């Protein structure tokens, strides 16, 4: 069986995880290590009048206690800023490593207690006396601008007020429209919840004045960059960051949080390794949350039901501090996606980002794109209902036609390629769309309301073309690096700056090597997650590992092949121009001469017969790849549900997903990514919600209260693909990690509305819990009775 590109190769990494040999950060212990426990604010908003650590410092086993006043290095930084409408810059208030003078959300770290055992650290933290002067909490997004000042001098609690698109043209379209469809949606706040909580183990080496940090990171090199260059202001070479096996990320493990930084900083102070592992409630309180937008949407239609304009006014809740990529999520990862896969001539969006006294909000699987897709696919569905068109046919009518690519949207992006109808057709066929009405009537005989919901989505992946990101406010590059080392025996070591925390890179990246060099998959070893062992890299987020990192590997392999050809030419006494390389063999065209890849590898390291005058020995190449454009995966998901009107319980009875991810490296892994994404989207639509009370207390801070999708909440999924290869990268790949989470929430909510529309239900909020659905039915019936 082939082990190259396109084969469903079984994962190389499975064995260690299945036998309990995975090595996660909390599994690592260092001699002499001590344990850190963070004392956190239990109030949402307060001035700190005093902190007394005397008793805690004297408690049994305590090694050190630090507060904000002890910290002499900087805190987390903002990695992306945008200009305001009036030309001023995003407000970037300081975020100290430990609270200084003020706390801004429940969970804000106030002090760290370091002790011989975790239990001693926790016990001693109860002896720290903090006197708070409480201030009013600011929780509600719609009234945040009128709330108590959270950051000194930041008017109306607003971090930024940004716009994109042509307001005049859009308002003109709205005025001239034969119909304007209006909708307000709330994108509920979620907690990412990778199953492995965040952890850090920091060690200081007195001999070299350097640090090693083992941590749960999606981007170890970025962690090193931020710690060294921005927080500690020491050479990057003085910090090694290792992200060993990491148990899921979904965005929450991109950033450098205060806990990891404080442990690293304190390891030098006390000259002992310090370990910290979040418990689940700390994870709920401190991992950056996701979503939390309110979108006011206006869609303009002409008399032929063609979309002629779209205006979206968005409020985004960004929490008590500005997290690293918090600004990018509701702006350039959201506003730029508002054209969806539709031909919309005029679009305008305004986004206001607010501070509240809640946990900071940042990227969660999809990051901005799920919010854009949700509002768009909801309003499209409503438009189809209002004009009396079939939901699928309304979409088809407005799709960007396949001969229009490259397509310049009204919101900055240029889609390189796509063909949206085949995916819609396929999904409709997979779910037997045409016979839906007979299933609906059959269900109604059982007292159930059956509905079908469509969601056609597009996303921008492969983050990011550096020049574009830089022009839009990004402060980092978007490239990725890779090196390919051919060993003398012909085995291959690939190093990458991308990080695998469930994606299966050890398998899929090896498939690229197998495809290009013809060596077996088992001969390829992937090194990642260690800033000392890989060249500089940007990590894994925004479905970029393959579309950027994989392409970097491909480019490094091309360099290896180019050099190998020269060596082979020498060995075969031919001209390099005449040497061909295929399936692991070099041949000279027009002759029967051949030499194997292994022989070339050996010659590179044992250069007895080698063109040393013109060619260096050895066979190791590095490539950095910066993409020319984003990639644009797209597709259609269709959900079919049955609602019990007496209980409001929604049962998902069928799910069809047809996605265009370009070329696939490993279809098995792609399907797994789609399944997981859909499950998270269903979680958002039906189950999950981070709920704060009016005092800013997170009421859903454990699995007892926050409803995670479980096996019995979900159906099995039908997953298929279409393929329009990406036109601007060597592998023709687009990325698949976030699609499921982007596509699924509107499919499900549209299906519920479709099911209940005979009852007069035309809106549904997320999560559509049984109570929410039941109330919507009651309200609709009450309205009908009036």
């Amino acid at each position: 069986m082939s082990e190259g590109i396109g084969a469903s190769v079984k994962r190389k990494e499975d064995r260690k995880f299945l036998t309990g040999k995975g090595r996660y950060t909390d599994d690592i212990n260092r001699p002499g290590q001590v344990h850190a426990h963070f004392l956190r604010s239990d109030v949402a908003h307060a001035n700190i009048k005093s902190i007394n650590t005397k008793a805690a410092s004297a408690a049994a086993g305590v090694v050190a206690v630090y507060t904000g006043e002890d910290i002499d290095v900087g805190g987390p930084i903002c990695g992306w800023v945008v200009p305001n409408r009036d030309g001023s810059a995003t407000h970037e208030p300081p975020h100290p490593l430990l609270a200084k003078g003020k706390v801004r959300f429940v969970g804000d770290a106030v002090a760290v207690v370091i002790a011989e055992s975790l239990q001693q650290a926790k016990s001693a933290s109860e002896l720290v006396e903090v006197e708070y002067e409480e201030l009013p909490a600011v929780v509600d997004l719609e009234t945040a601008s009128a709330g108590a000042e959270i950051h000194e001098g930041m008017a109306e609690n607003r971090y930024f007020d940004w716009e994109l698109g042509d307001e005049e043209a859009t308002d003109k379209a709205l005025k001239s429209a034969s119909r304007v469809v209006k909708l307000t949606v709330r994108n509920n706040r979620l907690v990412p919840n990778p199953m492995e909580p965040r952890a850090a183990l920091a060690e200081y080496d007195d001999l070299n004045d350097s640090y090693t940090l083992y941590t749960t990171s999606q981007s170890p090199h970025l962690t090193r960059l931020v710690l060294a260059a921005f927080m500690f202001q020491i050479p990057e070479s003085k910090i090694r960051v290792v992200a060993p096996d990491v148990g899921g990320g979904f965005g929450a493990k991109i950033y450098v949080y205060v806990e990891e930084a404080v442990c690293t900083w304190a390891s030098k102070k006390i000259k002992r390794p310090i370990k910290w592992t979040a418990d689940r409630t700390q994870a709920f309180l401190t991992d950056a949350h996701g979503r939390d937008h309110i979108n006011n949407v206006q869609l303009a239609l002409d008399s032929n039901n063609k979309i002629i304009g779209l205006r979206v006014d968005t409020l985004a809740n960004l929490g008590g501090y500005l997290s690293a990529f918090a600004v990018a999520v509701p702006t350039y990862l959201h506003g730029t996606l508002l054209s969806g896969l539709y031909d919309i001539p005029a679009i305008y969006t305004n986004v206001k980002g607010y501070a509240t006294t809640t946990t900071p909000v940042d990227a969660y699987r999809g990051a901005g794109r799920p919010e854009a897709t949700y509002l768009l696919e909801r309003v499209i569905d409503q438009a189809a209902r209002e004009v009396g068109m079939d939901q699928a046919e309304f979409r088809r009518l407005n799709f960007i036609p396949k001969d229009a690519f490259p397509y310049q949207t009204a919101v900055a992006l240029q889609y390189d390629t796509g063909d949206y109808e085949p995916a819609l057709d396929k999904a409709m066929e997979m779910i037997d769309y045409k016979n839906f009405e007979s299933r609906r009537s059959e269900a109604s005989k059982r007292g159930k309301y059956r509905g079908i919901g469509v969601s056609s989505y597009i996303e921008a992946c492969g983050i990011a073309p550096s020049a574009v990101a830089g022009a839009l406010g990004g402060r980092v590059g978007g490239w990725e690096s890779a090196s390919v080392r051919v060993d003398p025996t012909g085995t291959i070591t690939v190093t990458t700056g991308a990080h695998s925390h469930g994606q299966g890179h050890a398998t899929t990246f090896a498939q690229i090597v197998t495809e290009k060099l013809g060596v077996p998959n088992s001969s390829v070893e992937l090194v990642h997650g260690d800033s000392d062992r890989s060249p500089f890299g940007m990590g894994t987020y925004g479905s970029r590992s393959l579309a950027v990192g994989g392409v970097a590997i491909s480019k490094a392999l091309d360099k290896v092949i180019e050099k190998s050809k020269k060596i082979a030419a020498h060995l075969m006494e031919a001209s390099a121009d005449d040497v061909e390389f295929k399936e692991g063999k070099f041949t000279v065209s027009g002759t029967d001469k051949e030499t194997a890849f292994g022989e070339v590898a050996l010659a590179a390291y044992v250069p007895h017969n080698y063109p040393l005058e013109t060619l260096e020995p050895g066979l190791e190449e590095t490539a950095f790849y910066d993409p020319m454009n984003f990639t644009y995966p797209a597709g259609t998901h269709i959900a079919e549900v049955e609602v019990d009107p007496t209980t409001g319980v929604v049962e998902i009875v069928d799910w069809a997903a047809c996605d265009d991810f370009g070329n696939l490296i490993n279809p098995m892994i792609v399907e797994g990514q789609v399944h997981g994404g859909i499950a998270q989207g269903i979680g958002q639509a039906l189950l999950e919600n981070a709920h704060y009370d009016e005092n800013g207390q997170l009421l859903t801070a454990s699995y007892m209260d926050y409803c995670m999708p479980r096996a019995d909440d979900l159906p099995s999924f039908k997953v298929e693909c279409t393929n329009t290869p990406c036109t601007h990268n060597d592998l023709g790949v687009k990325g698949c990690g976030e699609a499921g989470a982007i596509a699924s929430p509107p499919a499900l909510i549209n299906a519920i509305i479709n099911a209940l529309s005979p009852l007069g239900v035309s809106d549904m909020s997320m999560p559509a819990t049984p109570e929410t659905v039941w109330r919507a039915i009651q309200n609709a019936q009450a309205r009908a009775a009036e």
Partner: protein
Amino acid sequence: MAEVSLKVNGKVENHEVGENTLLVDFIRETVGLTGTHVGCDTSQCGACVVHVDGVSVKACTMLAMQAEGSEVTTIEGIGSSEKLHPMQEAFHENHGLQCGFCTPGMVMSAIELVSKNKSPSEAEIRDGLEGNICRCTGYHNIVKSVQAGAEKMGG
């Protein structure tokens, strides 16, 4: 502190532990087997599932002392890298894992599920795994894995 004596994966473990030491901490910190994970602290996620005298138990919700005299089996005790347990094999063949963090608990729960019901239906598997949370797979391939594992185990 108190003496506790029990068997972990067939090996006798005699140790002095705190009276409040959880079984999961005993397994991870004292015995040094880190395949059993802690994901939630509230007996919800199932990352810490082990077998105590053949019954699946959330090791974050049992004291080490309560396991006195018991036979505890962890993920490290059911198969080896050279010879996987049929359920481990089925997870590998059906891509039933991604990040791997929930996997040990998931496999331990699945083995117990199949020991009670030799050929479970999809609904029975979904119901049986309700106490194990996975954030990566959407459970689709886990269900397939358990079905395949049940067949391999002779269901």
